[in-house]
């Protein structure tokens, strides 16, 4: 049974399932490093997942759908940015509002456009960039499947994790961004525009969550179902914490959650032999999140100014 479970496909599926979480988590690390918490990613992924499918069905081009997903998410992220940065409202509450609005708007548009609740019509998903030929040898089957069998946004996510790590630690922008989250007053004093810097960070996080939503519907599932994100936005936040607020760390932490998800899906296929009810497998990613948080929080240090609205001295 072990050989049936541990296949190249298991690891490839882990990477695929990790991708929406990872994209959102990498975005979260940027956002939170600037001092703004973002628990709105759940809602951002939801609106982008819906916008991606709806626009693809409307226009007939999946890349226009991806673009629409990013735009929708950025628009909703700017609500969170406006409320939490300019209006200085509680960041958790403003993000909760965005989450509930996202649930309502996607549900409303679902029924208005498609005439019924539940699931949209299917779209043709973006194909993987390479598929391993059936007659490949075992070595190439492993390497090809685990490293080369993904869809474009999956690779984009990997690239962005590396790129943003570099940007955060090796560029002036990154240094300033980190200053905003540690000591905004000091950053302000030396002439960094705190509010604008935070706005950009939230919008980047919005764009990343948009990619996450696009990946979920346009590369994986192929249709939108109400509330289909199922807590991934919150898991992404935990992954960001586990990754110690670094884009690279957040990405790697997400792989762990992706692996847990892939494993539970695989194990469900063997539920006859293993004889554990499927609900316990389904719980696994959520239990893992709690366990990871229990193990890591307290050791990882959050940005000092996180969650605190900044008021410019007028």
């Amino acid at each position, binding site marked *: 049974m072990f050989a049936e479970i541990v296949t190249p496909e298991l690891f490839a599926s882990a990477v695929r399932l990790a991708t929406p979480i990872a994209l959102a988590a990498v975005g979260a690390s940027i956002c939170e490093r600037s001092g703004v918490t973002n*628990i709105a990613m759940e809602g951002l992924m939801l609106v982008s997942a819906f916008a991606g499918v709806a626009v693809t069905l409307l226009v007939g081009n999946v890349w226009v759908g991806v673009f629409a997903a990013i735009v929708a998410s950025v628009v909703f992220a700017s*609500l969170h940015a406006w*409320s939490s940065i*300019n*209006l*200085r*409202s*509680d960041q*958790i*509450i*403003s993000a*909760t*509002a*965005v*989450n*509930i*609005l*996202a*649930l*309502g*708007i996607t*549900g*409303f548009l*679902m*029924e*208005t456009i498609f005439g019924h*609740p539940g699931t949209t019509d299917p779209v043709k998903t973006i194909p993987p960039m390479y598929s391993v030929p059936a007659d490949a040898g075992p070595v190439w089957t492993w390497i090809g499947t685990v490293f080369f069998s993904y869809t474009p946004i999956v690779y984009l996510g990997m690239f962005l994790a590396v790129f943003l790590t570099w940007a955060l630690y090796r560029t002036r922008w990154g240094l300033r961004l980190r200053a905003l989250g540690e000591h905004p007053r000091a950053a302000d004093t030396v002439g960094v525009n705190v509010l604008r810097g935070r706005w950009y960070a939230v919008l980047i996080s919005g764009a990343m969550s948009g990619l996450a939503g696009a990946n979920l519907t346009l590369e994986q599932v192929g249709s939108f179902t109400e509330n289909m994100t*199922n*807590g991934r936005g*919150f*898991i992404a*936040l*935990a992954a960001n*914490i586990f990754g110690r607020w670094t884009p690279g760390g957040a990405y790697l932490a997400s792989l762990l959650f992706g692996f847990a998800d892939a494993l539970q899906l695989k194990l469900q296929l063997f539920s006859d032999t293993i004889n554990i*009810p499927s*609900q*316990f497998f*389904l*719980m696994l990613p*959520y*239990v893992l*999140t*709690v366990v990871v*948080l*229990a193990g890591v*929080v*307290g050791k990882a240090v959050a940005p000092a100014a996180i969650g605190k609205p900044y008021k410019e*001295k*007028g």
Partner: protein
Amino acid sequence: MPEAKIGTPAEELDAERRFALEQQRVKRAITIATPFISVVIAMLVGSLVILISGHSPAEAYSAMIGGAFGGWRQIGETLLRATPLIFTGLAVSYGFRAGLFNIGAEGQLFLGGLAAAFVGLQVGGLPPLVSLPIIIFAAFLAGAAWAFIPALMKAKIGAHEVITTMMFSYIGKYLVSYIINGPLRAEGNIPQTTELPIASQLPRISDLLPFVGQNRAHIGIVLGIIAALIVWWVLKYTVMGYEARAVGFNPAAAETAGISVASTTIKSLCISGGLAGLAGAVEVMGVHYRLFDQFSSGFGFTGIAVALLAKNNPFGVILAAILFGSLSAGAGTMQLEAGVSQKVITIIQGTIIFLVGAEMIVTWAVARVRGRKGV
């Protein structure tokens, strides 16, 4: 922003203090007005959405009002839906008072429902005056237990309760799904528990007051009002409530004053969870008489909107719960008669949270109206 004037430090301090006092006065007035203004604006946003979707807001809202208050049956339905919201609203607001955001009330509600279904099936032989309190107490404990690990993690290592309670929400739903498919599954094709014995059911109001005609409202609404009174009393007159408020207001100061922030956090989040558990109990005991997958229509999440709109005031919670109960009761009629998707009430709900959360919007608007230079 006040215009920065050059003066001695003492003068500046004095001006600042007067400004602060004036601000405080305005702020208090706004705090009271915000919920009402927010509801009005949210309804306007809702009508805009209805308009864009090609329907008439007037028609939609009048259908909604008819569906919520058009007669005893409709009023009963509004109260029926307000009942769990009172409990989840109290749950979330008790957490807020102690500085905790119990976003996972939905999961605690599921566990409360599970306990009510399980215990309710065991105590059917007892007289209702004995069995009902036992079930309700069990549901409270179950909800509190489900909040305990997140509470412990918050108190001991600072893990954010927003993530942990949310994760426990999903875990709780899958647990309930397992139990109604496995150990407690009734005979038949539908995964659900067997019906509760009469002694474990909450009586309907129409059984006690026949003049209200046939409707589904049950005495859970009275329990909700009692719970609101108790929560109000606990917060105002007990040491535990005082400690919760002190920790919510300023944990560092509370700790300095000798209050254990850790134990207050644990107690407060567990009480919050217990109250959410009661919401599950009233749904199982008063509405469905059994437990199944979809027995809650997101009451835990709507509880957040209720608490915020009520500004965490227990009596405000009752009013806000009735408002959201009426929206939910009227939404079905609106969909039937005006053809507008009932999801519009979720949009209204989100807008209300957004506006109440961003008190600055109202502050800003009021300042404009008063012709003051920004507040």
